[in-house]
């Protein structure tokens, strides 16, 4: 084959590729189903496969958060065999209001999603003792120290993966809420967090989780009580529109919205409203006695408030 033939062949292939792309692009918009919602032709072609990529990138973010110390699928399978999967964690009684409790929850939620068999890193020695000399030797060449990204803005290293995950599966709201948490709480990028959440809200307009996070951002970072109140009301409505009735699977998300609303009302001096919301939280809480104590304290403040 001469050089001229090769060049002509390449030119023909290039022309055919460009022509095919130009022909397919407008037609892809008319395709039905989730594929049609994709932003680009490449994502359309990937179809539901892009959700696999998205989950992979989300796990990658978790790997980065733990500086590469992460169980392989084989370690996860072994852990699942040894400890059993699907054990629901008891909700944290501290989660009813309070910044510290909430930070813990979001962080924990992020980790749990990414590695259900990861057991929230309680088992820091997941590889176990070395089984043989090759295993012992190999541990010098891989990450065996469990550290978290912390300080000097190193937490930002997880963000490219979260961004990519959201690109590949824009309907997974957790990608937006987790990225926003890190952006506003650890990196001080409140504007970026809000922009990313709003981008998520445009794609998922009825997401109570994104509305809730926007409310937290408005209250905790911007100190804008009115906006936070509106956003949490919208989150509550979205929750009711989505679930209707309370059951064991959705109880926590409603309790979280109501607890934050109650905390906001309490801090802004609306004791009546705070009592109303805490009463609703009590009905949903697995530890109503702790809420009852709080309600008693608020009722004592009630005459003074009036």
């Amino acid at each position: 084959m001469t050089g001229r033939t090769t060049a002509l062949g390449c030119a023909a292939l290039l022309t055919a590729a460009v022509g095919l792309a130009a022909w397919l692009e407008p037609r892809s918009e008319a395709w039905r189903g989730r594929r049609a919602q994709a932003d680009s032709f490449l994502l359309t072609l990937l179809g539901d496969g892009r959700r696999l990529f998205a989950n992979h990138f989300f796990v990658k973010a978790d790997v980065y958060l733990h500086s590469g110390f992460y169980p392989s699928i084989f370690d996860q399978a072994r852990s699942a065999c040894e400890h059993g999967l699907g054990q629901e964690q008891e909700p944290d009684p501290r989660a009813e209001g309070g910044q510290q409790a909430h930070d813990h929850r979001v962080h924990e939620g992020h980790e749990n999603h990414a590695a259900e068999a990861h057991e929230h890193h309680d088992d820091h020695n997941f590889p176990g003792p070395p089984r043989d000399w090759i295993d012992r030797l190999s541990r010098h060449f891989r990450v065996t120290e469990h550290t978290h990204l912390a300080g000097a803005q190193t937490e930002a290293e997880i963000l490219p993966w979260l961004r990519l995950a959201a690109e590949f599966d824009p309907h997974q709201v957790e990608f937006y809420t987790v990225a926003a948490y890190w952006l506003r709480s650890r990196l001080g990028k409140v504007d970026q967090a809000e922009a990313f959440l709003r981008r998520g809200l445009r794609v998922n307009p009825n997401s109570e989780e994104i509305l809730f996070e926007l409310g937290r951002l408005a209250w905790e970072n911007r100190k804008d009580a009115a906006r936070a109140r509106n956003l949490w009301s919208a989150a509550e409505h979205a929750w009711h529109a989505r679930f209707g009735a309370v059951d064991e699977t959705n109880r926590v998300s409603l309790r979280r919205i109501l607890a934050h609303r109650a905390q906001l009302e309490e801090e802004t001096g609306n004791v009546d409203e705070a009592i109303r919301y805490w009463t609703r939280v009590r009905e949903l809480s697995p530890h109503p006695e702790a809420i009852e104590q709080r309600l008693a304290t608020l009722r004592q403040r009630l005459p003074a408030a009036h």
Partner: protein
Amino acid sequence: MRTLLALAWVVIKELYRRKDFYVLFVLTALITLVLGSVNFFEDTLMVRYLREVTLLLIWVSALVIAVVTAARQIPAERESRTIFPLLAKPVTRGQVVLGKFLGVWLASGLALALFYGFYLVVGAWKAASGSLALGLQAFWLHWMMLAVVVALAILGSLLFSAPSVNSTICFVVVTGILLLAGHLNTLAAAQPGPGGALMYGLYFALPHLELFDVRDLMIHEHPPVPLGPLVIATLYAAVYAALLLVAAWWVFRRKPLST
């Protein structure tokens, strides 16, 4: 030794005359530069994702260069019939195998050095911190791993009919080892009976190429590997490369050269 170096020099010259390396290097550089210029949340400090992608591209490129170059050495000599004048000289078949191995390994090392040099340039561009000692260790371990891969591809070139078949099989085997070999003991422990014993047998027989992969240590800025394990890994690679080369020499000795 002079014969070996002469044979090796021919292979090195072949590498820089062919376009494989340049294409792979330009592709690696292009992808890395495009990814490096992406803006994530207006943050310029993120560097680990770029390290990960660059190192992955370097690993893929080095593997392609090593396997493809090694796989075509002896078949090309046979096809062009230059093997006959070569063996008519005072050169033994063992020296041909060893010379070809040395040439491909050195050529792969040169290419690898350029790739790792590019990696350092990217690190400097992003003002990233990182251990130079670990970088040098990563290069050394990677090169030692390539010694095993090159020896494997040379043995394959004497067993399989065409370089393309050999290259494909080598890629599948090396990728399989990199991904699974380290976990065979876990799988074997969960598998009772002869299946488990077979997996254990494979676990101890296969060369553990994943030992030489310290990308995670580099990406996440962990300390360098201690000297002892580094020496053991080097010896481990040397033993496997030697075993494969002896097997290649043994096959080549018995192989008729007529095509």
